[in-house]
């Protein structure tokens, strides 16, 4: 019987994979639902004996089985989009059934956990430190140092918390990993638990990811005996973007408003319920099983550039022809990502801007496409790599509108705890609306007793200076990255596309 492999990733489902799978089953094929290869423009992608058929519909079934389909793309593993990658965290993508324990074990699953448990916890921490792994959620903090802090902190009990509140627009690597390879995440968490001495773990998933939640719950039920005595539970977020910030996430897990906590104390010292807690992103934890396999730490550290070691699952999104998941060692340039790999815009019009790092990331113009994917290189260019989302905009984008949206989003999602974020974002929206319109001086300001108030109408230059000033205050005065990084998209739009602000 012909074995047909079709992804059951949420994106494939949204593109109609279920109907295609049903049509193949009706035609007498054995249909295997596997994880997604990450070539999203080709979904639903069919694989028969290693050969791919992209963008399939139920009507294509006959031609595909007869070998006459024009949708054949050749061997999937040799497709340039896949062949150019260096997949470690996504090594199983497209190849295994997400909830099949024998598929997982047959592809090297649990090797990292078995080896980690044969080592003293301190050696596990050392291996992670030696690999150079840094927090993939955006902050880029060395994972080994965080784990060492948790391991050395005193507390009645300790926790491992997986931050799966992937709210950034343009990012879907966490979702793909949870849906496509949930055991790898559980293995990473179990290794972390061994390293820091935790007995309980939580995965905090956003409610916008119903498929990931279902897959994780099923995976935990299957893998519970393997990861025991460590226990993991899935907790579902409730639509608050700010809960992706680690202290806000911890408050939410405790059942409180998702308000940010002031640091210190660090969560590693006093985190969930006041106990030492290792809070790590999905991709950080999913990288750990590879690092803990024999020779893994050295192999990981050998990849990348400067202080950014290993690979990064980069997500190509927005107006891009070949969107999807591209895992590569750090150091790849933005130009390669957008043009060589992504094939330019989906609309075929010239690229105007690329936002890297989600709603809080800077807009980067094509002149800076030489920028290499590296935490420090981006920081040096007033940008951030964040969670690795790359959103492409064509020339129809209005950068003033995008800057306004950044402020509006911050205002809507601010937790309200600190003033620069809560009020600053509101004023930011008003200010961007006002730029270019000659605003008369305020009636009260013109009263004779208001000696220090402005008497003349505000010019666009005044408003722009005020906006820059406001951004400065938000950057330096906000408690967390939401208020602190919202200025990145605003200021970068202002700097590179001033003509949009007239």
């Amino acid at each position, binding site marked *: 019987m012909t074995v047909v492999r079709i992804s059951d990733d949420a994106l494939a489902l949204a*593109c109609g994979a279920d109907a295609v799978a049903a049509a193949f089953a009706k035609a007498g094929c054995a249909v295997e639902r596997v994880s997604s290869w990450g070539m999203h423009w080709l979904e639903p992608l069919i694989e028969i004996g290693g050969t791919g058929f992209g963008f399939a519909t139920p009507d294509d079934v006959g031609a595909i089985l007869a070998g006459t389909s024009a949708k054949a793309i050749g061997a999937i593993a040799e497709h340039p989009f896949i062949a150019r990658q260096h997949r470690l965290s996504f090594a199983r993508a497209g190849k295994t059934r997400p909830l099949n324990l024998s598929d997982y074990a047959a592809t090297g699953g649990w090797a990292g956990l078995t080896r980690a448990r044969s080592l003293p916890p301190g050696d596990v921490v050392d291996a992670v430190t030696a690999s150079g792994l840094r927090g993939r959620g955006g902050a880029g903090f060395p994972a080994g140092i965080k784990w060492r802090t948790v391991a050395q902190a005193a507390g009645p009990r300790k926790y491992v918390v997986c931050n799966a509140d992937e709210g950034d627009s343009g990012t879907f690597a966490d979702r793909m990993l949870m849906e496509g390879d949930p055991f790898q995440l559980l293995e990473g968490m179990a290794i972390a638990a061994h390293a820091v001495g935790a007995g309980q773990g939580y995965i905090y998933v956003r409610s916008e990811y119903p498929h990931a939640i279902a897959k994780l719950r099923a995976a935990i039920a299957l893998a519970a005996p393997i990861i025991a005595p460590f226990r993991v539970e899935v907790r579902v977020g409730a639509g608050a973007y700010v809960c992706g910030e680690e202290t806000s996430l911890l408050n939410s897990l405790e059942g409180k408003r998702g308000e940010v906590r002031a640091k210190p104390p660090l969560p590693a010292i006093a985190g969930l319920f006041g106990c030492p807690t290792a809070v790590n992103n999905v991709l950080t934890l999913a990288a750990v099983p590879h690092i803990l396999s024999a020779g893994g730490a050295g192999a990981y550290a050998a990849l990348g550039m400067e202080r950014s070691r290993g690979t990064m699952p980069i997500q190509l*999104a927005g107006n891009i022809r070949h969107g999807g998941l591209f895992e590569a060692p750090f150091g790849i340039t933005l130009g390669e990502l957008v043009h060589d790999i992504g094939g330019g815009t989906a609309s075929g019009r010239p690229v105007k801007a690329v936002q890297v790092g989600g709603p809080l990331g800077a807009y980067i113009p094509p002149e800076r496409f030489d920028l290499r994917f590296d935490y420090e290189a981006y920081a040096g260019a007033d940008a951030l790599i964040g969670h690795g989302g790359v959103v492409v905009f064509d020339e129809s984008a209005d950068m003033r509108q995008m800057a306004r949206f950044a402020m509006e989003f911050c205002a809507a999602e601010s937790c309200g705890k600190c003033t620069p974020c809560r009020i600053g974002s509101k004023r930011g929206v008003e200010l961007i609306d006002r730029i270019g319109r000659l605003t008369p001086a305020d009636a009260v300001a013109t009263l004779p007793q208001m000696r220090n108030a402005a008497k003349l109408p505000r010019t666009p230059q005044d408003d722009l200076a005020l906006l820059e000033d406001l951004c400065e205050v938000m950057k330096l005065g906000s408690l967390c990255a939401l208020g602190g990084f919202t200025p990145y998209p605003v200021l970068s739009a202002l700097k590179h596309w001033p003509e949009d602000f007239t």
Partner: protein
Amino acid sequence: MSAALARIIAEHAGLEGPMLPILHAVQAEFGCVDAAAEAAIALALNLSRAEVHGVVSFYHDFTAKPDPRPHVQLCRAEACQARGVEALVPAAKAAAASRVRLSAVYCLGLCSAGPAARLGDTLHARLDAEALARLIAAA
């Protein structure tokens, strides 16, 4: 307190940090978390009603009143904007009228295949004006 509410609270009583799981279950069961439910949860968790209300009102997923209409969530975040979702909004609003609850969501994680929407637990990608109108009409 209704029997269903008492059951939900009892089911989650053993969890660490039971508040959000309880609120999700209440929202799913009754379509809202109203003042009566808040009071019952406050009593069960030994919190003030103000504390519970503070949590309920913080999160977008919990509502004070039920809305029985079908709910279409349209992603209007940056990646879907880059793929032209804003141009679809006026027609979508007209198609939804008062029969369908149309709301914005900030990212469904389908950013390479937008514009995207969610109806219940079903996701839809690569929407154009026509596909979105069909989705709303069938909701």
